[in-house]
């Protein structure tokens, strides 16, 4: 399963900073620049003393921390497939190398069992581990820094009451010294707790706090510059992430019917919104996690995200009405044997019917700039997580050849009323099992 580009870096070394100095022999930047960065980045952080954290925390605090961990999708990076919760190991392929989520169970040797609340807070706010080393920003501290002391303490209580798992961290393959992360932070990190906007409602501010902070939605939905920082002038403009396209959430949202708060709340909480999508790929995991979060917080997140689309209510209604009319007209036409034979039985029924599925011309996957999302969905289907209920779409891998899949994708794109995709055959090839 692909994982998205967001994770703590592989470092929980407990050696002192000087013990790290041999890393400079691996520099790909010039050694001189690297050394300078290394010294600048390294000199500024002290190690936090080892402690034995409390064994117990108030129940309410632990439960609150659990909910916040779901908002943050912590397991997405810190739990590998089939692995023990929070014991790390998930590989994250970034443009800078592969980084593995770390063991954040309270195991004292291989996890973070010797971390005090102060050390944990510093990691969340400033991206520095207990030993004083800079963490790579794959751990999204640029978002987590906005989290309040109270919420960080609750997360700490939750993490420290998990089952300790002895599991060594896997070394990452980023060929840069950690000091470069120090330099990155000096350029991009704006440390500090979220400041509410007094012009907005309490609900909006709560949503903004969760979306911009722990939820780190921008980590996938905002395009990054070549140094891996989210582009400030393109916030939520949609981005490529591990082979999938995370759609734009701003006014350029490709959703044929503009999102409403109700629809987005349903999508975030249950992974399905009737006239938009069934969550798939990395987002399926996010929706799974948010299903454990209280309704008020999920709704607040939806309120904030919907507000990112600045089109007026009239514009949105017009766009939605036109999309619905076009979709209904499009499916009324027959014309593609694969669609009519393989897709229409479910997708032409409408959700209200038993076995009914999303009306395809309204599907977000048809409207994003690449056919890859749709290709993954058709190949692999949408399957429930082990032992859980969810929508189900059967996999068509094997039934369709790449050429047939290409033809179907081209047809579906036309059904959505969008301009044709470029090089559908080439993109289809990239989604085949051997190429991922």
């Amino acid at each position, binding site marked *: 399963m692909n994982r998205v580009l967001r994770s703590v870096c592989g470092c929980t070394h407990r050696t002192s900073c000087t013990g790290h100095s041999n890393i400079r022999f691996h520099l790909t930047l010039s050694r001189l620049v690297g050394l300078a960065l290394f010294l600048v980045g390294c000199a500024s952080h002290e190690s936090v003393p080892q402690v034995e954290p409390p064994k117990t925390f108030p129940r309410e605090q632990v439960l609150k921390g659990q909910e916040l961990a779901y908002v943050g999708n912590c397991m997405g990076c810190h739990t590998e497939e089939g692995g023990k919760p929070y014991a790390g190991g998930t590989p994250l392929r970034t443009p800078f190398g592969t980084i593995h989520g770390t063991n954040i169970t309270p195991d004292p040797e291989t996890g973070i069992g010797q971390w005090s609340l102060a050390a944990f807070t510093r990691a969340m706010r400033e991206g520095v581990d207990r030993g004083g080393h800079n963490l790579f920003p794959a751990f999204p501290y640029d978002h987590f820094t906005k989290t309040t002391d109270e919420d960080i303490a609750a997360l700490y209580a939750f993490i420290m009451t998990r089952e300790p798992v002895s599991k060594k961290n896997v070394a990452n393959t980023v060929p840069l010294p950690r000091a470069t992360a120090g330099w990155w932070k000096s350029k991009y990190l704006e440390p500090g707790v979220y400041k509410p906007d007094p012009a907005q409602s309490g609900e909006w501010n709560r949503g903004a706090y969760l979306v911009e902070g722990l939820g780190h939605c921008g980590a996938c939905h905002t395009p990054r510059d070549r140094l891996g920082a989210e582009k400030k002038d393109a916030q939520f403009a949609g981005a490529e992430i591990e082979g999938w396209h995370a759609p734009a959430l701003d006014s350029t949202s490709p959703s044929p019917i503009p999102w409403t708060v109700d629809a987005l709340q349903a999508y975030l909480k249950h992974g399905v919104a009737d006239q938009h999508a069934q969550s798939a790929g990395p987002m399926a995991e996010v929706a799974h996690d948010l299903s454990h979060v209280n309704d008020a917080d999920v709704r607040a997140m939806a309120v904030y995200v919907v507000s990112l689309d600045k089109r007026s209510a009239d514009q949105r209604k017009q766009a939605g009405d036109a999309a619905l009319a076009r979709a209904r007209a499009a499916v009324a036409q027959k014309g593609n*044997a*694969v669609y*009519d*034979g*393989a897709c229409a*039985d*479910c997708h032409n029924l409408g959700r209200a019917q038993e*076995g009914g599925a999303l009306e395809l011309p309204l599907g977000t996957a048809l409207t994003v700039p690449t056919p890859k999302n749709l290709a993954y969905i058709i190949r692999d*289907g949408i*399957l429930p997580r*082990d032992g859980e209920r969810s929508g*189900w*779409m*059967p*996999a*068509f*891998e*094997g*039934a*369709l*050849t790449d050429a*047939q899949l290409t033809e179907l994708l081209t047809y579906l794109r036309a059904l959505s009323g969008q301009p044709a995709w470029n090089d559908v055959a080439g993109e289809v090839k990239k989604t085949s099992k051997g190429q991922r």
Partner: protein
Amino acid sequence: MKLDVNGQVHEVEADATTPLLYVLRDDLKLNAAKFGCGLGQCGACVVMVDGEAIYSCITPISVLENRKIKTLEGLGTAGKPGPMQRAFIDAQAAQCGYCIPGMMMRAQALLEKNPGATEADIRGALQPHLCRCGTHSRILHAVARAGELMRGKS
């Protein structure tokens, strides 16, 4: 159009959107693959195309020209069962048997690609298949046994 089923080419007269399952059962009288849900959700209709397990109830024949279709009938006969069938008989893995042909074809596709499939591989592959009689553990034994037979163990 022409369909290659179990190595025999059949001339079929049917609309291009017709599901393979209907053609197999109604036209070719190959009744091993079963109609369960008609939505690709239960696995009773699974057959193989070019070595991959597919749902025949949602695969239109339009995509199957010049491709090799294999059904349970292609794995052996009552008198001369193939290894998968032998193993299912030995393990007495069927109760009502309705889901079994689909399970066997999925397992066949798995073992042809990976003869050394582990129990975890087998469980993972059969995950999309439903059986309500509850012979799951015998089915797992049978597939593991079929793997042994295919690897030449007696």
